[in-house]
């Protein structure tokens, strides 16, 4: 067993020959993923501040057809890897293609979405390329003096923010959640280059194979898109009690979410988890029921416009971030609340 891998660079890279921003794009349902459009916009902004170029990597058989669109959003170069083996995310294949490209193009900054793909791909790429990575960033900025990328990310469950830089390691990598930065403006007149990526995916390099994909059908509104989210925490006490939250959510036309403890207990499926290790949501109204408001959970919902808390302990942290609150046992509040809202709705 060898320690070290061909392509793994140790510290002390020459950073002078690394230039430009490279966005690792995602294709969803044959279109550019919304997060990719956001990142192209961000990449453009960062590249402009550095006076360098911004590029996008698109992988999959649809990649070629989307290149122009990427250019319109702000890319100077679009690297296209048209290979049907890349149509569905495969960690080995994507890492291979992206790493090879990086070693040719030598970007100074690499951006990925903090998505299913990005959360897996970014650390792996980072390991292979020897760069510096900041995950789940809430802000990226170029330091005017040092020209280094300063990435700010939540740590300690969101209790603190850390700013990180990579002085010498390249590329400087960052992942960002969808809807953190605004989507890029589209300018159809923009010009750019479409460059096919050399080399196909080496099937021998694909060690881990995806055998099955199980989509869990969400009934009703999807959590990430809902305008109203009713979320339950450890205080809910059991799977059957979530029915009360579902009732409230349906009257409000919203979705049900949960904190990690509630998901770990098995009271609701994992995909409903809101928080640092779950989804980020920013609805108009976020109702936190039986949730203490641990920072790790708040990390996922602080973008909400109005936060309402229902908790029987007045010292619960949720009240320090909520706009409205009721200090009571949720079991006594929710049915009455749902009924009254139904009444007001029909009036």
């Amino acid at each position, binding site marked *: 067993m060898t320690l070290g891998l061909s392509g793994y660079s140790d510290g002390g890279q020459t950073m002078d020959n690394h230039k430009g921003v490279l966005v690792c794009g995602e294709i969803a349902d044959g279109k550019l993923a919304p997060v990719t459009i956001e990142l192209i916009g961000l990449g453009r902004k960062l590249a402009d501040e550095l006076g360098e170029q911004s590029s996008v990597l698109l992988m999959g058989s649809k990649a070629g057809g989307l290149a122009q669109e990427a250019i319109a959003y702000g890319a100077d170069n679009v690297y296209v890897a048209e290979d049907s083996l890349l149509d569905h995310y495969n960690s080995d294949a994507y890492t291979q293609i992206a790493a090879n490209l990086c070693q040719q193009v030598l970007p100074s900054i690499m951006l990925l979405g903090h998505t299913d793909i990005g959360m897996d791909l970014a650390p792996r790429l980072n390991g292979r390329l020897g760069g510096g990575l900041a995950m789940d960033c809430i802000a990226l900025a170029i330091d005017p003096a040092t020209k280094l990328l300063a990435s700010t990310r939540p740590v300690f469950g969101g209790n603190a923010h850390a700013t990180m830089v990579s002085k010498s390691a390249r590329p400087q990598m960052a992942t960002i959640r969808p809807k953190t930065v605004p989507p890029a403006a589209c300018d159809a007149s923009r010009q750019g280059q479409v460059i096919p990526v050399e080399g196909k995916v080496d099937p021998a390099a694909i060690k881990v194979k995806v055998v099955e994909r199980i989509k869990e059908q969400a009934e009703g509104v999807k959590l990430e898109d809902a305008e109203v989210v009713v979320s339950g925490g450890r205080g809910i006490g059991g799977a059957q009690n979530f029915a009360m939250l579902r009732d409230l959510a349906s009257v409000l036309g919203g979705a049900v979410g949960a904190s990690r403890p509630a998901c770990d207990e098995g009271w609701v499926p994992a995909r409903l988890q809101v928080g640092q290790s779950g989804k980020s949501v920013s609805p108009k109204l976020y109702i936190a029921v039986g949730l*203490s408001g641990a920072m790790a959970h708040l990390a996922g919902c602080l973008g909400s416009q109005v936060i309402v808390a229902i908790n029987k302990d007045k010292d619960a942290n949720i009240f320090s971030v909520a706009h409205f609150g009721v200090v009571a046992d949720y079991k006594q509040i929710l049915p009455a609340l749902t009924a009254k809202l139904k009444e007001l709705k029909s009036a």
Partner: protein
Amino acid sequence: MSPVSATYWGIPGTIIFWVLFAIAFGVFLRRSYFLYRLLRLGKPERRSDRIGQRAIFMLSVVSSQWCALKTVGFTDLAGLGHALMFWGFGFFLIGYVIIFGVSGGLGLSLPPAFEALYRSILDIAALFVIAAVIVAVIKRYIVKPKRLEREESLKEKIIMVSLFTAMTMLMVLHYLMEGFKYAAFEIEPSPLLGGVLASFLTSNGISSATLLATYTALWWLNYVILLGALVYTPHSEHLHPLFSPANIFFRPLGPKAALEPVPAEETENFGVSKLQDFTWKQLLDLYSCTWCGRCHAACPAQLSGKSLSPREIILNLKEHLLEEGPGLLNGKAEASSKLIGDVVTEDALWACTTCGACIEACAVKVEHVRRIMDLRRNLVLTQNKMPETAQLMLRNMQSRGHPWAGIQSLRLRGDWTDGLDVKVLADGDTADTLFWVGCTGALVERNVKATISMTRVLKTAGVDFAVLGEAETCCGDPARRAGYEFQFQMMAEQNIETFKSHNIKEIVTSCPHCYNTLKNEYPQYGGDFNVVHYTQFIGKLIAQGKLKLANGLNSRVTYHDPCYLGRYNGVYQEPRQILQSIPQTNLVEMARTRNKAFCCGGGGGHMWIEEQSGTTKINQMRLDDALKTGAEQVVTACPYCLQMFEEGIEHKGIKGALKVQDLAEIVEAAMQPSESKGAA
């Protein structure tokens, strides 16, 4: 004269008498020995300490029938019936020995006056026995109180019918025999009632030959029935007459609520998963159960509709022992049915709140709680099976040192001292008196109020005490009661070291569970401190004049006895005395009070283990008890009870109608106003 002295078909009656006796007694002994061998399947246990004390207790309790009489109440006179039956039969047993044995078998004649006197006693005794049997039958089959509601198996029905029939027949035969004997032989003096029957028979002109023949037949019939009863008893499952005096003799003498540590030699199988894991005493319990069902009728889990019945556990285990025992004695490795699962369900084991009502109610000192704990230990330590809510609590005990999973996001262990002037022990500090707060009193908001009240009371009384603050960890009781013994042991050893490092002599605690554990269980690990519950401590302060409770309460209150303070440790009077020393306090008692108090539902790990679904919740039932008294306030001296009452009041929506207070809060309010301000 005696039927034994006659000859039957050429065989002398004596021979027949003694041969029958030998056979019957032989079979009796053989079966009894078998039952004894079954007990030997169990592990050893030392119960022969203080033999004198044990013997005196057993003899006095059994002969005075206090074991039965203590269960007598207005609605339950069965204990009186049993006492009468017991004494009645006691006289009869002596009578059988005299009449059948001495006079019959040995052929010695008895002085007529003595015989008449003794028979008169028997005449009266028989009346009581018959009356008791009739009442028992009515109770068991017509009235059917809660404690006797049971699906009796065919075997059990046969036993019951046989018992009642045999007893009645023996009594009737007694009279008949007397009548015919005294009529046939015209002996004077004659017994009280027997003589009446004899006169009746003689006055009806029955020939003396007929009288004699009938007497002889009745005599042998009586003898055979007696021998039959002797043989039948150990073969039936109605074993308590043979074994319950022994069970009373071997009763536990240590503190009621102290569980035993897992033996150090144990390496593989912990707790009990099969019959051979029980001790012989635990198996003896199974024989001794009288089927009275009082434990069943006292169990809060049972009364709230859970599947747990202490009586069923005992009786099912007994059947299991009798069924599987022979195979196991012959060297079979395993029983064919699983103890946990087939004989006793896991649900039943987890429903127990360890309140001890079953032990208190039992006339023959069966130990139910210890058994359930042993089975829990097996589930947790060996099989790693427990309700998720229990697992969550135990994991938190392990990683954070307290059972309140999740609460640490709200407040930390030492936060309750914020703003209070209390001495928090640092490394190297010493203190004589330690106020041990307990996890609930430090971490749960409602209970923190009681802790603060207690602190103010102690300061007002000028007590020099210290607290451990954030260095305090759980006493370990929730872990032990949930069966997670090793975690308990680790915490106990750690706490004892902490106490010793600060040179603590006296520990005052707010929580009866901590009280019980620190006082009765820590000595198992070398912890020898003077532990008092705050009700005892405050009582002393009042007596010493250090606390004056002058502010009137102006309220009708009722006191709820926490199980671990009252029933288990006998502290009933002190809290009541405190309440009664407060002016304008109208103290009323709930129907189920003191040693008969009904559990709040929080013990046995149930502050965290989810209550199984039943007909109602235990705390609701106790709340109803309190409401029935018309009291405005319920007072208790336990953080779990306080939580349970608050939850019940909230759930029922009667916050305005009934308030629940910890006794410390009541005392604080009653203290003189000038002393209470600024003290803390």
